[in-house]
């Protein structure tokens, strides 16, 4: 079973994402901000990370830049999932090492499509 870390400061979004991803046979861990996510990755590197952008303490983009420099941090497939839908923001995310990008709002169909694009399904 593949593991996915769901990083979002909204408990509701985490819950929705968890339900969809569990149906897709992912083992889910949650984090409420970038720093919690980094700590989770240092304990155990997940196969996939679903990542919000705007979060307190540490943002998604700062987390991603730090993660990619960590040992083994190049391994997780990172899918941004954010309300940011500017082309400049999307390009910034890809440059920082994101593999895929979801613009909120999303549904199960989009999550499935994007995880397929990223080679996770």
């Amino acid at each position, binding site marked *: 079973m593949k593991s996915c870390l769901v990083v979002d400061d909204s408990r509701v979004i985490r819950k929705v994402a968890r339900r969809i991803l569990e149906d897709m046979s992912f083992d889910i861990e949650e984090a409420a901000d970038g720093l919690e996510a980094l700590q989770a990755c240092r304990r155990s590197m997940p196969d996939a990370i679903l990542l919000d952008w705007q979060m307190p303490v540490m943002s998604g983009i700062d987390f991603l830049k730090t993660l990619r420099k960590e040992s083994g941090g190049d391994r997780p497939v990172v899918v941004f999932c954010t309300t940011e839908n500017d082309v400049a923001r999307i390009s910034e995310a890809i440059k920082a090492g994101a593999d895929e990008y979801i613009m909120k709002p999303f549904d199960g169909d989009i999550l499935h*499509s994007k995880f397929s694009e990223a080679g996770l399904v």
Partner: protein
Amino acid sequence: MLTEAQFAIVAQEAKQRIGLALTHERLAFVDARLTPLARRENCACAGELISMIQRQGDDMLWHGVVDALVMSDTHFFRDRAQFRALSETIIPDLLRGRPAHARLRVWSAGCAAGQEPYSLAILLEEMREEGRGGLVDILATDISSRLLDKAASGLFSQFEVQRGLSIRRLIAHFERVGEMWRIADRLRAAVRFETHNLLVDAAQLGPFDLVLCRNVLSSFGEADRRETLERIAAAMSEDGVLVLGAEEDYASLTGAFEPAHGACVMRRNAYWRRAA
């Protein structure tokens, strides 16, 4: 709600006009699809709309009714394996069999809101960038003028562009326009859109080297399905390839095709001749 008798009349019109086979369990679907049209025509419900059309014998309104029933749920690069096969074998094989200056003629039959022909245009552009493309013409047709207008606009919602498009393809081939995304002009220009009813002879549209008619014939009855396959064959070059939906297998219906890459991809039978 539509009565049984009204549903039967709508089903008969849909079959006769566009080959759409509506079975009884589709009553609620038909009712839901016709309700917005009923409101626009100042009718309280779909049932009242049908009564009115029957009373007036209004052909334009029947056209609107049938148009509203055309399916439009689709993804970019729907059935990824098929697009992989198109890129890796089907299109290269077709190009190899032709002179370098010849244009490959492609028909997206039943293109709905345009996701299929635009996916093809993107794929062909990527193939050209890899130095393995050729000259290609894409004709995309649908029975629904409502869907063709949308397709030709090249505008898709944020939801639509996230179904089947990778983020790299999105930012390489689309630009954001307000809350919508528009496909690049060069790709929009690569596809010609035309209204066409698959129940009508298609020979004058062709000949095509490659036809995609995916998840269209599954909504037809068997006789319309066979006759449409033969009309498509008559509009194809002798070595042309037809791609059906990934779950469609109609090889046994007609001698016009033979299975090529699995059941859903068929090659035109070069010896087949259409019955006069």
